[in-house]
């Protein structure tokens, strides 16, 4: 591939944005520590709860990794979404968007770069917590879920990206007043995603909403693997179908809100 071909130039622009955030992250140990801190705290909490419940509940005794798998997979979704939103917020705090959008960087290249950074943040944060679980609770996530971990991880990460795109679009359109969405919006989905319990315990209207979320199908699929020892391809299909819908919603929202921001002159006005 020629270094001046459109594809090579796109790859360099994506690398530029990845580099910008990698420089920021790798130069700051508090930022790195923060990535691992919350997933590790959550993992410890649910790990000790599991140790206690194993003596009380036959189900937990049989499927010891139920809560630990759930908390680590939930953090994949949460950190994936947060990674997208934080990258964008960093550009707004730095009053840097004007320079980026006057460079040849395409919006889709910015989005791809931000997804790559989000993946790096998830691997450091959730990966770090998963590694800690091995010596502390003798629990290995890849061992517990086997190859099913790959689709579960990928679907939850991509769902986090889709929600992240909607939030980024809203922050662009509404300004930093909407930044709290980055931290809190995803938790609206946690109770209806069936992270720690089956979706069937929800009231009927909520259960119907839950099945519109790829996360609900993934966590049901996770329980099928851990409790029944089987991989449910029907749930995988449902997760992929709803994920496609959410990715389309995320892309359309970002695109529409970005256009609105350009129409209203908000791209130069962002900042604290």
């Amino acid at each position: 591939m020629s270094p001046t071909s459109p594809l090579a130039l796109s790859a360099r622009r994506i690398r530029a944005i990845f580099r910008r955030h990698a420089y920021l992250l790798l130069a700051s140990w508090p930022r790195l520590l923060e990535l691992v801190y919350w997933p590790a705290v959550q993992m410890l909490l649910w790990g000790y709860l599991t140790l206690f419940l194993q003596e009380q509940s036959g189900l937990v005794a049989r499927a010891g990794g139920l809560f630990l798998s759930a908390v680590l997979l939930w953090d994949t979704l949460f950190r994936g979404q947060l990674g997208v939103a934080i990258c964008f917020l960093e550009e707004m705090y730095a009053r840097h968007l004007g320079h980026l959008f006057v460079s040849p960087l395409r919006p889709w290249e910015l989005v791809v770069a931000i997804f790559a950074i989000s993946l790096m943040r998830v691997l450091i944060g959730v990966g770090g917590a998963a590694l800690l679980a091995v010596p502390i609770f003798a629990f290995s996530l890849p061992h517990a879920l086997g190859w099913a971990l790959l689709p579960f991880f990928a679907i939850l990460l991509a769902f986090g990206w889709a929600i992240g795109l909607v939030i980024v679009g809203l922050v662009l359109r509404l300004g930093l007043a909407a930044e709290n969405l980055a931290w809190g919006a995803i938790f609206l989905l946690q109770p209806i995603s069936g992270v720690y319990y089956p979706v069937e315990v929800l009231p009927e209207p909520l259960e119907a909403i839950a099945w519109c979320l790829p996360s609900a199908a993934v966590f049901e699929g996770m329980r099928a693997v851990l409790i029944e020892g089987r991989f449910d391809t029907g749930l995988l299909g449902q997760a992929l179908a709803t994920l496609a819908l959410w990715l389309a919603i995320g892309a359309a929202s970002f695109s529409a809100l970005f256009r609105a921001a350009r129409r209203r002159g908000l791209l130069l006005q962002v900042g604290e």
Partner: protein
Amino acid sequence: MTAEPAIRVEGLVKRFGTVEAVAGLDLDVPAGRIVALLGPNGAGKTTTIAMLLGLLEPTAGRIRVLGRPMPEARFEVLPRLNFSSPYVDLPLRLTVRQNLLVYADLYGLADPTGRIAELARTLELEPLLDRPTGKLSAGQKTRLHLAKALINDPDLLLLDEPTASLDPDSADRLRTHLSRWQRARGATILLASHNMGEVERLADLVLLMKAGRLVDRGTPRELLARYGRRTLEEVFLDVARDRRAADAA
């Protein structure tokens, strides 16, 4: 045959609700010149620059930059232009070198290290390359912003208040560098500034805006003669206070 101007704007309008920030602007910026865009606060200069850069969609009118329509052809035009503004920053936690490397990649430079070394030498940034941007003085930061703006050796450079917050010595060095670069490169510079001394020294042509419209244009000498004034600052005040050229004279 006359060369196509670097920027051609026809009937440009931008409305924000009921406010008309740019109200039917027509202007040409000839290629290879330093052109100053002047006007009182609220004249529509920043809004115009944002539309030229493709950061803001016009309500009506046509813009051609470097011979291509904007914002439709923005990705053909953007690699050939650059800009600097005190209202937009570079990430403060990145070092000078890291910021320049990021922009070298964004513009697809063939030799990023060589280009950064060259800019660092000419803009006196060499001892600062590994210093975080947030730890630079105002003058050093402005030189970094200029290095970023020159990294792709643009055909067209848009500068909004390039020497704002600089002491006279730093501002003078920066103007000298800009002037040398422009002469050597033959590039076009569109400069928005409230520093009339700077405009008199740098600009080949002055465009005067008020209330979203172009109200006058000419070389600094032509404007001084037309308004019967000794400085551009006096001309600026005449325009800002609605004194016509004939009345002022």
